C-alpha cells in the first residue's frame, strides 16, 4: 500500500530530529496530514531551500548563506578577539548575552574519544590556520564546561602555544540569581575551586 508507505516514510524522517521519538513523530505526521497541509508544504519548502543555500562561512565555519557570514563581514566587530564555540547555537547564545563584540570560530562539535570524535573531525585545522594568519590578540575558548569541552579547550590551548596570542577560558561557577541551596553540587564544587578574591 503506497499511501501507508508514505506516512511511514514521513514518520521515519521526522524521527531524525533531535528529541523526537516514535510517538512524537506519529503525532507530528498526522497533524501535518490531517490538519495543516499548507504548513507541511511550507516546512518542506523551507527545508529544501535551507539545505540548498546554507553552507559554512569560510572564515568562522558557522552556518551561513553567504561565503562570509554577517558577523565576519561586519566592520564593527573587533578582529583581534576570537571566541571559539562548539555550535552555531552556542554562538547565538553568546550573541544574545550581548557582551561580546569580537568575532567567532565555530568548531561544529567537541573532541570526544568515547564517541570517536577527534580534532580531525572538527574545524580545528582551519582554526589553526586562522590564528597563524595573525592579527588576533585574544582567543576566548567558550566550549562547554563538560569533560569533552574541557579536553577541546586543552587542545586549542596546545595549538596556540607557539603563537603570540592570549588564550582565555570562560569562568564557571554560581549562575546569576542562583541560590546555593538549590544548586547542583557539581557546579557548587567547581565554584569553590574557582573562587576569587574580592
Amino acid at each position, binding site marked *: 500500500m503506497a499511501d501507508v508507505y508514505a506516512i511511514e516514510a514521513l514518520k521515519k524522517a521526522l524521527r531524525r530530529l*533531535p*528529541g523526537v*521519538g516514535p510517538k512524537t513523530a506519529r503525532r507530528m505526521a498526522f497533524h501535518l496530514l490531517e490538519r495543516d497541509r499548507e504548513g507541511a508544504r511550507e516546512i518542506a519548502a523551507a527545508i529544501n531551500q535551507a539545505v540548498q543555500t546554507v553552507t559554512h562561512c569560510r572564515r568562522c565555519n558557522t552556518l551561513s548563506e553567504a561565503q562570509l557570514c554577517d558577523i565576519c563581514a561586519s566592520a564593527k566587530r573587533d578582529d583581534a578577539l576570537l571566541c571559539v564555540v562548539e555550535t552555531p547555537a552556542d554562538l547565538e547564545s553568546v550573541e544574545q548575552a550581548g557582551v561580546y563584540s569580537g568575532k567567532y570560530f565555530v568548531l561544529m562539535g567537541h*573532541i570526544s*574519544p*568515547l*564517541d*570517536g*570524535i*577527534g*580534532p580531525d573531525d572538527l574545524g580545528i585545522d582551519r582554526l589553526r590556520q586562522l590564528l597563524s594568519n595573525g592579527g588576533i590578540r585574544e582567543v576566548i575558548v567558550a566550549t562547554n564546561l*563538560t*569533560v569533552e569541552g*574541557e*579536553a577541546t579547550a*586543552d*587542545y586549542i590551548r*596546545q*595549538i596556540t*602555544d607557539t603563537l603570540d596570542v592570549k588564550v582565555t577560558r570562560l569562568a564557571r561557577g554560581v549562575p546569576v540569581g542562583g541560590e546555593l541551596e*538549590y*544548586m*547542583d*553540587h*557539581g*557546579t*557548587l*564544587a*567547581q565554584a*569553590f*575551586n574557582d573562587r576569587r578574591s574580592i
Partner: protein
Amino acid sequence: MRVHQQPGYVLHTRPYRESSLLVEVFTKDHGRLSLLAKGARQLKSRIRGLLCPFQSLLLSWSGRGELPILTAAEFDQAYAELTGEHRLCGFYVNELLMYLLHRHDPHSRLYDCYRQVVDRLAQSCDYEWSLRIFEKNLLRELGYALNLEYDATTNQAIDPKSSYSYVPEFGAVKVTAGGYNGVIVNGSTLITLHREELADEYAKAECKRLMRVMINRQLGRRVLHSRKLFGGLRVAAAGGAER
C-alpha cells in the same frame, strides 16, 4: 529491582530524547551498565553537574531490563577534576572499559583498580604504574590473565636475573631457550608487575611495552581515540612520535 547508593563512576553520557541523559556507568557490585537520567539536561536539573566522568559517586536506580532509571546521585568523595594529560588518560581507561567489559558483569576488584587510577590522575601524581596495574587486572577479569610467576615451558619460578620473551596467551620463556617471538622483558620486571610492587623507570617502560601488546590483542582492530589524541598532543608538544 532497586539499588541504593551504589558506588560508581560515570564513564560516558549521551543526550537522550528532549531532556534526558543516557548514562554509562561502572559500579562496584553491578559492573558496567546504562542508566536513564530523566530530565537531567533541563536547566533546573540538580544532578547534571554530578553526572561527569571521573567523579566518585553514589548512584541509586530502579527498574529491570536494559535501561533502569537513575533515581539519585551524590558525590561520594570531594569533587575531583582531571586536567590536561590526566584527563586524556581518564578517557583512555574509560574507553577500555566501554569496549572490553560486558554489561552487568560485576568486577569489584577491577573497580578498586579503576578507582585508584582515577584518584592518582586527580591528584596529578605519578599514575603510569597505577595504569599498568589497572590494565593487568582488566586482562585478568577478561579471562586473559598474564602468567607472570612461572616460565611457561619449564614451569620454574621466573628468575629475576634472566631475560624473557613474553608470548601472549602462552607466557614467559627464557630468551636463551630461543624460538619464541614475544615481547622481551626482564624477569625482575615480570615479578614486580606480578607483586604490584613499586617499579623503577626501566621496569615501567618494559611493562608499558608489554601491556600495550596485550591490550591491543584484546582490542583487535578497534582504534582507541584517546590514545590517538594523546599521540597527537605529544607530537605537537615534543616534536616526536609517541610510541
